[in-house]
């Protein structure tokens, strides 16, 4: 294989370009449909309302590999006023599901913190389902400097 200097330069530039675009060039990103489907499945017929749930996420995440997120749901955590579960979704990841927390009366409060991956700048969505079937939603846009999937 004898490459001329020009060919090598073109090749290197191409490779750098691929590396820069890498993720966005992949077709396998979750689309709005997949996210909406996940929301509908979780809501089970209810319409997600605003309020009661608050999602905390950084405005800008330098490293998409570990993005800290927390959710907090206003709930007495006893009797009928119980938050049963919270689902986290990311609409720009290859697969929108992130995790589902399930609480009980023994939880004392419906709060949880974890660390997640974000492939690119996108919305993180948190949904809470209460025992009476009502569903609440909050969303935050997180700007991602370096994507945290693929390799």
């Amino acid at each position, binding site marked *: 294989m004898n490459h001329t200097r020009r060919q090598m330069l073109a090749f290197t530039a191409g490779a750098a370009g691929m590396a820069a675009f890498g993720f966005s060039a992949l077709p396998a990103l979750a689309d709005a449909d997949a996210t909406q489907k996940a929301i509908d499945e979780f809501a089970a017929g209810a319409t997600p309302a605003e309020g009661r749930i608050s999602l905390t996420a950084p405005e800008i995440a330098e490293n998409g590999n570990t993005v800290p997120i927390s959710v907090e749901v206003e709930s007495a*955590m006893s009797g009928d006023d119980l938050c049963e579960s919270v689902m986290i979704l990311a609409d720009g990841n290859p697969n929108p599901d*992130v*995790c589902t927390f399930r609480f009980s009366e*023994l939880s*004392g409060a419906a709060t949880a913190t*974890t*660390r997640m*991956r974000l492939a690119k700048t996108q919305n993180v969505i948190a949904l809470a389902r209460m025992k009476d079937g009502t569903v609440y939603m909050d969303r935050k846009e997180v700007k991602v400097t370096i994507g945290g999937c693929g*390799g």
Partner: protein
Amino acid sequence: MASKPRIKLPKKASAGEVITIKTLISHEMESGQRKDKDGNAIPRQIINKFTCAFEGATVFECDLDPAISANPFFEFTAKVNESGTFKFTWVDDDGSVYEAEQAIEVA
């Protein structure tokens, strides 16, 4: 794959107190999206379920998807009414189960 889990919870609490529990376990959480040097997809291997139980009663559970970072970390709360032991369980895609226990004394 996974090493000894780390758990942080208070040793003592008063009855009815809501305590904060933090857990972290070392695990690569291979998402199934990455490719190796030859362009072959690396198969997914993650912890897919985490459970915290107090004396047999479930306190907190989480279903994990590949979008959870490597070395999954959780912080959550628990209401303690009596002395007892918290049991933590992580279930791997390959069927392995990692367990840890920690006692709490209620004054």
